[in-house]
């Protein structure tokens, strides 16, 4: 059997078995990690692979979260319904925002995504009657699927775990597919890709929409998990946090964003017990990684593994280059 399948099944077994030997607190922590891992993976499609660095990805997370929350409160908590709502709304948002953002690149792209996400934030903040304004939405009913209510944290955890595995597997195929290879090509040299006959704008637009939709899904999952949404989940610091997760984990890799999400969530939980200065710690971690480990946790693991496996064969194995990002 293929090595990849073995690894995948091992992760599946671990996720499935976790509730049997971990306390509830840790299961909730795992749920949060998996949700943010999906969120980071979604940003990674456009940032790590297609090379478009966004500082507005929280807009999609928030859109998905609020869409699912508002629909569950006002219409029906049916999960198919609320998840579809989150997907459609983030699809529309990504479709519109993407049209504008595709006109620019680099720094201007970053600023434009930031501007759009802050527009979403101020809309959420102002639209009191739907979003609860600064109070956020609370008491959102648990998702229901075929008459079964996910009212127990462990069931929600399994739901999140399943969706995480599906999205991870799907994205892994996507980035290794011919389409994904074109995204990598665009990241490395867009001019060349154009002269090869690729309409790079279309591919970037597609990547942007895929990122947005999956980001929206992670937001919906967050609503299922938390039962509460605050406008801070749409704020630009959320975009910054997920960007740090991707960079610290290792952009342009599949495991990187997952590891990054895990590190940041765990660190925040540990640090919160001792001090309020979380942002200071987060900033320091980011600086340390950018300066000393630019290829992220994934790069560190890769280097260690290479040294350990074949110490003499690989004198000059270079970690993945990342200055493009």
């Amino acid at each position, binding site marked *: 059997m293929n090595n990849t399948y073995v690894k995948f099944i091992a992760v599946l077994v671990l996720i499935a078995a976790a509730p049997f030997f971990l306390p509830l607190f840790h299961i909730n922590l795992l749920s949060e990690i998996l949700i943010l891992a999906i969120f980071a993976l979604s940003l990674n499609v456009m940032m790590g692979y297609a090379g478009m660095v966004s500082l507005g990805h929280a807009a999609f997370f928030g859109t998905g979260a609020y869409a699912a929350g508002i629909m569950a409160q006002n219409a029906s908590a049916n999960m198919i319904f609320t998840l579809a709502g989150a997907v459609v709304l983030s699809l529309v948002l990504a479709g519109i925002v993407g049209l504008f953002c595709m006109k620019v690149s680099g720094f201007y792209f970053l600023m434009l995504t930031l501007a759009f996400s802050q527009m979403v934030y101020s809309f959420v903040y102002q639209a009191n009657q739907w979003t609860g304004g600064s109070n956020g939405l609370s008491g959102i009913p648990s998702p229901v699927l075929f008459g079964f209510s996910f009212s127990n944290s462990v069931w929600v955890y399994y739901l999140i775990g399943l969706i995480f595995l599906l999205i991870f597997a799907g994205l892994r*195929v996507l980035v290794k*597919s*011919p*389409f994904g290879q074109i995204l990598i090509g665009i990241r*490395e040299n867009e001019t060349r890709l154009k*002269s*090869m*006959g*690729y309409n790079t704008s279309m591919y970037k637009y597609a990547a942007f929409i895929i990122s947005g939709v999956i980001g929206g899904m992670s937001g919906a999952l967050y609503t299922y998990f938390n039962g509460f949404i605050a406008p801070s989940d749409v704020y630009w610091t959320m975009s910054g946090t997920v960007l740090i997760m991707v960079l610290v984990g290792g952009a342009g890799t599949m495991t990187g964003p997952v590891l990054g999400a895990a590190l940041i969530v765990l660190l925040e939980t540990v640090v919160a017990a001792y001090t309020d200065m979380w942002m200071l710690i987060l900033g320091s971690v980011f600086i340390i990684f950018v300066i000393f480990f630019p290829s992220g946790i994934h790069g560190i693991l890769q280097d260690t593994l290479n040294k350990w496996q074949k110490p003499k064969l690989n004198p000059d194995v270079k970690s993945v280059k990342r200055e493009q990002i």
Partner: protein
Amino acid sequence: MECILKVDGVSKQFGGLEILKDLSFHVNKGERIGIIGPNGAGKSTFFNLLTGDLAPSKGNVFYKDKDITTEPNYKRARRGIVRTFQKNNLLVPLTVLDNLLLVLQRKHGISRTWFKIRNQKQYETLYNEADELLQRWGLKHQRNVKVESLSYGEQRQIEIMLGVATNPDVLLLDEPTAGMSQSETNYIVQLLHELPKDLTLMIIEHDLEVIFGIAERMIVLYDKHILIDDSPDVVRKDPQVNQIYIGTEGAV
């Protein structure tokens, strides 16, 4: 003779700076055209107008009688007008094979496939074609090496190979042998001679030995316009060409 490319009264200005003025000529299928001219004569700009990397300020470009003046570069590349770059313009962190596969996968019509991993097992014909090309271009041993760790000459070779890989109708080579050693240059010239006869070739080159060896027709650009458009023999003997391009001392 079938006319494949026609340029009609094309000018290019950057702000107040005029680079090319009122250029007209046509290219027949299968012609081998050399383009020479002193630095700054507008040779690269001229290429950019043909490939769609730049839009002309005035005039029209026709490809097989179709007006393509406003078509962007990627559409022209799909039609079969393919270029190589004066400076190596490759995807350097990727392997030689990955560079080549990116070119070939569009030809195989699988570029929008996102639900299937690209590997040798799934896309056998694609990989076989890539391997054949690598063999022909003498790069087989470098197949899985990152482009950034290859020598300049090898990178130059890949630059040209990527242009040829899609079987274009018109291939525009911008100084293909620039910076190459004599043996590497000879190798490239030999490969260019082996290209199919119905491929239209336009070459900008400073190495006159190379260009007179390949070209059947020469275009000399000088001071924003075409000075001479004639056979290599005429250009070789032309006193004005010798004066402006090669210098006053002696013939070529």
